[in-house]
């Protein structure tokens, strides 16, 4: 028999078991967001391709043609797209998951389930976009007759890292947004800046060596570099940067879950 004790000032131990019990809800919420996203649009799912393609074109022109950034002999669009793949995922996941709790406030105030489901499933929704973009990258590689090096097999690990980074930040923002809607304004700002302070349109090799470690504090630097390394064999990997990224992600994720869990109980009262 399932017994449950709710006591003031104590977090219950059943949380993770509940999360497992509601595992199908991850799927259902993500499914809902995907279904809803392109309803009553004319070109439908194509939107999740149009955005990255246009961004790729613009960044290629700005950084590759006008800025004359080094490409290491690889097609610049490919270089840009490999950077955009994780960045696009990170930024949409951060935005979507940041808004997820507030967007679903009707659920939060009316029905119980681990709130973590909401935020995680919005990252999953963004991950589907990531997969669509990844499929486009394959086409792009075929177009440029580019065979990825063997390191491509390491890609799943870095995808996981990107997922962790997005979720970690997303959990923080989602939980903070419940109380402080200021984050609604902060997030687009961060996304806009992030595109330029992360090596999306250029390679991080152009950053002077002495600033390299400092630059790597942005976890997306390590992640984007690794994506390029995996997919294109571009420049040798900057190991300290990757190590920092891994630590970053771990800290973000752990603290994100901690803060989310800590504030979760009050969500329904505050939202």
């Amino acid at each position, binding site marked *: *028999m*399932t*017994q*449950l*004790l*709710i*006591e*003031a*000032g104590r977090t219950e131990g059943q949380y993770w078991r509940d999360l497992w*019990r*509601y595992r*199908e*809800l991850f799927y*259902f919420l993500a*499914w*809902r967001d995907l*279904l*809803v996203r392109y*309803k*009553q649009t004319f070109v439908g799912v194509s939107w999740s391709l149009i955005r990255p393609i246009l961004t790729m074109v613009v960044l290629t022109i700005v950084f590759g043609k006008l800025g004359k950034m080094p490409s290491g002999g690889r097609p610049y669009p490919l270089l840009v797209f490999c950077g955009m793949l994780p960045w696009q995922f990170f930024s949409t996941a951060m935005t979507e998951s940041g808004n997820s709790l507030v967007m679903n406030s*009707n*659920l*939060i*105030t*009316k*029905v*119980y*389930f681990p709130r973590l489901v909401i935020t995680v499933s919005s990252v999953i929704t963004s991950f589907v976009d990531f997969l669509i973009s990844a499929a486009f990258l394959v086409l792009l590689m075929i177009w440029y007759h580019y065979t990825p090096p063997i390191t491509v097999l390491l890609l799943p690990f870095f995808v996981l890292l990107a997922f962790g980074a997005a979720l970690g930040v997303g959990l923080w923002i989602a939980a*903070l947004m419940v*109380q*402080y809607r*200021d984050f609604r304004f*902060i997030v687009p700002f961060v996304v806009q800046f992030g595109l330029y302070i992360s090596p999306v349109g250029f390679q991080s090799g152009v950053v002077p060596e002495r600033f390299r470690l400092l630059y790597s504090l942005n976890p997306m630097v390590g992640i984007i570099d690794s994506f390029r390394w995996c997919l294109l064999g571009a420049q040798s990997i900057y190991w300290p940067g990757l190590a920092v990224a891994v630590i970053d992600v771990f800290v973000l994720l752990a603290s994100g879950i901690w*803060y989310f869990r*800590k504030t979760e*109980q*009050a969500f*329904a*009262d*505050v939202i």
Partner: protein
Amino acid sequence: MHNPAFTIENLGKRYTIGHQRANGDGMRHAIEGAIRAPLTWFRNGWPKKLQHVDFWALKDVSLQIQRGEIVGIIGSNGAGKSTLLKILSRITVPTEGRILIDGRVSSLLEVGTGFHQELTGRENIFLNGAILGMSRAEIIRKFDEIVEFSGIEEFLDTPVKRYSSGMYVRLAFAVAAHLEPEILIVDEVLAVGDAAFQRKCLGKMGSFAQTGRTVLFVSHNMEAIRTLCQRVVWLKGGRLYKDGNAAEIVEDYFNSTSNDLSFSCANADYGLSIEKVVLRNDRSEKCCRFRPGDDLVVEISYNAHKRIERPIIALGVFGASGSCFTSNMLLDGHSPKSLEGAGQITCTFKSIPLLPQNYVVKMIIRAASVNDLIVNYQEVAGFSVVGDLAEYGYKGDFRTFAPHSTPVVVPYEWRLPDGTTAAVALTRPHLSDRTDRALMHDPENIVTAASIHGERSLG
């Protein structure tokens, strides 16, 4: 011996008003401070200290609910009903106290939680089911049943934003009705939908309870509470006020709320204010609970600042199914010559022949010109008729349906083939075992009293 479904001890929930920040410490405050401060200063200047007021939505509530009980929770708005349900369904946490829950809980605090306007009925069944805690396999298994219960097969592939509100509610309840938890928590969800559908829902909840599962049910619909629950918990100001037999507590509750209904209104054009409308019994006591056959006195206290010639007053007594009887000066012609200053008008309805149900009194006051309204037609008081019909000689098997039958009973008499006559009337009971006593005290009454007890006619 089973454990109780709920054991609630000293439950309390505090909300802080005017100061949203909950108690926190360390990193949280540091981050908040760093992020908030510049923004707040920018908007409001130097931050002022916010007043903070505590409000206990629930306090010292202790309860035990046994497995298989259907418990109704009643109380006026803000009494803490919804807070209690929210805590029990784990949406929010208590500030103090503890709860031990034994069994899988499903809560239904709103019809159609998580329905998405853009999705079709079919898609919403899956989504809503999952949100309420059903597994995918379970939903697929029950899908046809759900669709049938909702009765909206044709619109299954239409986005719910195109649904009428009735269809929406039916679909939503259909999903919820197919949950199979051990404990079901339901908040005022029956307030929506048409009467037929409401009955269907009540039936579903009743049958749910018959399978030995526990139901907690909040409603303002006292009829629903009375028919569905055996036990009622009455919350008042966040505290447990009464707990016990459903029929008794609902009656108490109804009385207390009827007393609260204090009507007053004023019409500046005519300079007439109605100070209050009070219901009294034949002993002139303020009353809102009558027995069938009692006299009902409606006392209207007015204050006419200007002289009003021949105002026309009409009163109506309404039951759930509509108008029962009226008193109308427009018909009887007994309007007062004039009203001036403060005074009272009373109307006594003699021995009201009403079945035990709930009623309201409506009033309208017209000017002599008839077309001009001084006081609009509106509810001015409420009362309930209570009593055991057995005392009135009723002994049919379907007596329990009295709360739903036509409320007015004109005295009538059966004459049967075997020569038996049986008179029925809702006048004051002095019957059966009390016949003799009554006969001694008030011989006239025996003639009018109901006596289906088979008095042999002498002729």
